[in-house]
């Protein structure tokens, strides 16, 4: 009741012309300074939590990427010792400097796990969702700030435990990121158990986050911000949150069941009559290995859309802003995203065509898979049409957002032969699959996330990132990404299976081994391409203050100061119009913000 007077609301009533030269400029308005641990560590402010998520996720992305760079050595030069790196990793992982097959499998499983659950989802949802959504809907914070904090503090230990599993005896989980039983249950390393525990924490974090997002978007929108005035990014996060909320619990259930199989000796996923290394396995049996796959993919297919929808949201924001015109087919985009969300729950078994599925089920799932490709085509068409008639500024975020379109197109199109059962017979579990989903998530989603970082960096820091370094980062990354993933389609067409420690065992593997060298060098090049970004990210903090609203954007986050103070908006914003009113005829400036009243 007394609270509003102790906050920025009254002191900042003058509007956002206010000077923000010093970050400490607002603290007097709070009445008291929060102690360090409350402000930066156990913060309940959605912006701080968003930054925590973002930085943690970027570090995890780098870790996951490093694991892949190690794997690429073994794939390019099978059996060749890896100098001092090999010595550093120890005799268990790299005996004599040569990678052990178990270690290769650990790297593979953990690369997937880290990138998906600890890198991209926390960055796309935890970081951008947390930071941007409340700002874009004109809310002072998330609906449940303490729940928000709990969500991050479930995520961080989950992530750290996952990394820690590498240092346990026998190493980390090594049955692929999909952890198919019986292999995962029979693999007697504590790292696998740790994987399951860590996943339960990560899932809990996502569940708490998704509840918070939905309630925030439903309840906390600013005055005048109706459903059809929401920025597309908010729509994308809204659908994403529903996917997380409803798809993750079955994986949590599956993780509990697998923990029971591992720790209590049950047989949920173990059929009767298993014989391992010539020994009869002493378990009750009667379980079903395919049950895990159903539960896993019931999550993991919607998970694909959890990865791609926020990315599409970011791309929509950046494209509208940099073409200086409204998004083409905004409502169509929203309908498509909602439809995608629904459909993503009924396509999961297309990951399981090779499990002996009957004709009825396979026809159903390949039909739903073809249906789900339609909204993706519509979304891509809308983005392409949005370019038409624009006045396109090639800013760094726009470069990444532009590149997202053909990269996502390649990723999406190559899903077709995988979704059709007959061609999937040949392509299933080959490198074609690897190329396909990496085009969606690496040069697709990750490019969109980079676009988001460059786009909202001025919001979070008040500074612009250096455009020259940004362009170097973009072009090198673009080149290397394609150098990595394009050859994989040819490897897959040649029949090369995924998850092979040494592909040269096979004649068809030897035929395409030269491509592995190309891919590996591109991967290491991609690492170098990130150095300008990392330097840019930190050094730009020292740059001169950027103007408020440096992109001349229309959405609500630019009504708040940069960085926004506690409570975000000096006065509760009011929304007067659609989100992307750029180049409105008869206006003096080429953008007409949602929050600007009629003069």
């Amino acid at each position, binding site marked *: 009741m007394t609270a509003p007077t102790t906050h920025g609301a009254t002191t900042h009533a003058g509007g956002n012309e206010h000077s923000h030269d010093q970050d400490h400029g607002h603290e007097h308005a709070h009445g008291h300074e929060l102690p360090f641990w409350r402000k930066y560590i156990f913060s309940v402010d959605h912006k701080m939590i968003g930054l925590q998520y973002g930085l943690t996720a970027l570090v995890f992305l780098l870790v996951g990427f490093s694991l892949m760079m190690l794997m690429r050595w073994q794939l390019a030069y099978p059996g060749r010792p890896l100098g001092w790196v090999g010595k550093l990793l120890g005799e268990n992982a790299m005996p004599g400097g040569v990678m052990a097959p178990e270690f290769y499998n650990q790297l593979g499983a953990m690369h997937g796990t880290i990138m998906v659950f600890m890198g991209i989802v926390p960055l796309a949802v935890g970081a951008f969702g947390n930071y941007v959504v409340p700002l874009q809907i004109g809310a002072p914070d998330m609906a449940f700030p303490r729940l928000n904090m709990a969500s991050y503090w479930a995520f961080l230990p989950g992530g750290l435990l996952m990394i820690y599993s590498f240092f346990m005896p026998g190493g980390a989980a090594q049955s692929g990121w999909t952890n198919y039983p019986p292999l995962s249950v029979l693999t007697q390393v504590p790292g696998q158990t740790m994987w399951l525990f860590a996943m339960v924490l990560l899932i809990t974090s996502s569940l708490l986050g998704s509840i918070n997002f939905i309630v925030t978007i439903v309840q906390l929108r600013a005055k005048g911000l109706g459903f059809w005035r929401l920025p597309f990014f908010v729509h994308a996060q809204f659908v994403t949150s529903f996917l997380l909320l409803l798809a993750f619990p079955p994986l949590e259930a599956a993780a509990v069941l697998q923990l029971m199989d591992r720790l209590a000796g049950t047989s949920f996923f173990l059929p009767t009559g298993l014989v*391992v290394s010539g020994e009869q396995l002493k378990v009750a049996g009667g379980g079903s290995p395919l049950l895990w796959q159903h539960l896993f993919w019931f999550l993991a297919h919607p998970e694909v859309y959890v990865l791609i929808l926020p990315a599409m949201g970011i791309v929509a924001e950046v494209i509208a802003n940099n073409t200086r015109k409204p998004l*083409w087919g905004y409502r169509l985009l929203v309908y498509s995203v909602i439809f995608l969300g629904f459909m993503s729950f009924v396509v999961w078994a297309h990951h399981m065509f090779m499990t002996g599925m009957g004709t009825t089920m396979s026809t159903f799932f390949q039909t739903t898979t*073809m249906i789900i490709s339609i909204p993706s085509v519509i979304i891509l068409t809308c983005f392409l049409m949005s370019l038409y008639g624009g006045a396109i500024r090639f800013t760094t975020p726009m470069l990444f957002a532009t590149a997202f379109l*053909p990269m996502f197109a390649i990723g999406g199109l190559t899903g077709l*032969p995988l979704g059709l059962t007959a*061609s999937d017979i040949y392509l299933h579990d080959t490198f074609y699959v690897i190329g396909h989903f990496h085009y969606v998530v690496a040069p697709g989603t990750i490019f969109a996330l980079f676009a988001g970082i460059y786009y909202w960096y001025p919001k979070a820091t008040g500074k612009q990132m250096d455009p020259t370094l940004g362009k170097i980062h973009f072009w090198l990354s673009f080149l290397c990404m394609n150098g990595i993933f394009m050859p994989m389609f040819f490897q897959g067409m040649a029949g090369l299976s995924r998850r092979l420690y040494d592909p040269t065992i*096979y004649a068809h593997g030897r035929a395409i081994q030269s491509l592995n060298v190309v891919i590996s060098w591109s991967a290491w090049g991609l690492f170098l391409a990130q150095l300008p970004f990392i330097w840019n990210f930190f050094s730009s903090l020292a740059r001169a203050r950027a103007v408020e609203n440096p992109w001349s954007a229309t959405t609500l986050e630019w009504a708040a100061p940069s960085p926004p103070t506690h409570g975000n908006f000096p006065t509760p914003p009011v929304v007067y119009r659609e989100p992307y009113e750029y180049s409105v005829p008869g206006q003096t400036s080429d953008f007409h913000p949602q929050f600007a009243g009629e003069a």
Partner: protein
Amino acid sequence: MDETKYGFWLPVDVSSHGAQIDNLMAVVHWFMLLLFVGWGIFFVYCLVKFRARPGHVATYNPVKAVFTKYIEAAVVVVEVFLLFGLSTPVWFKYKGRPASEKDAVVVQLVAEQFAWNFHYAGKDGKFGKSSTATMSGDNPLGLDPDDPAGKDDITTVNQFHVPVNKDVIVELSSKDVIHSFNIPVLRVKQDAIPGTRIPVWFHATQPGHFELACAQLCGLGHYRMRADVLIDTPEDYAKWEKENAPTPSEEQPPTAQQPAK
């Protein structure tokens, strides 16, 4: 092995149904390429034509584009054709049983970490009884030593002999984890799942020496879970069958173990 059969695209196809899969693969990829190039031309045109420059202003009103609806409709039509015209027919054929099942060669395959155990019925055409309960290191297929039908059975490890121009049914099973039976040149792939027996069939059209690879991660030895696929001429196959037929005393599985409770 003839390494020239492999390259950067689909390897040689030596199966009767493979041509249909290859055909679908070609149609899908041409369709993808057409869409991508079409989009790409439009994309590059927009980026150049509508780049920001002095005096150029963006158009506020959305362009009326009927052709996008045509493209989307065309995509739907092509996908329906791919689905019901090209994909499902192959799948239904592949998932069914061969037309003349009794003439087919039946092979039982039990996968394990990290080997492929093939079990042929031998001269009498009957498989000896086998059970996971009697499997052990010395008796990987769990054969019943007392079953007369099993006396002439042929078993091999990582050597898959099949006759050319004949339907071959492989009944897949696994004794430990999930493996996947993958012969690229035959366009055959099927998971071998413990606790189930899943049939898959093919009809090889030319003899040769090829490879079987495991396509499902099955542990640290997954990468080397390889078998030789030897598609034999009828004469060679008969010769191989004869040479490998066991003498009655040869099959000496160890004492059967108690079934695990």
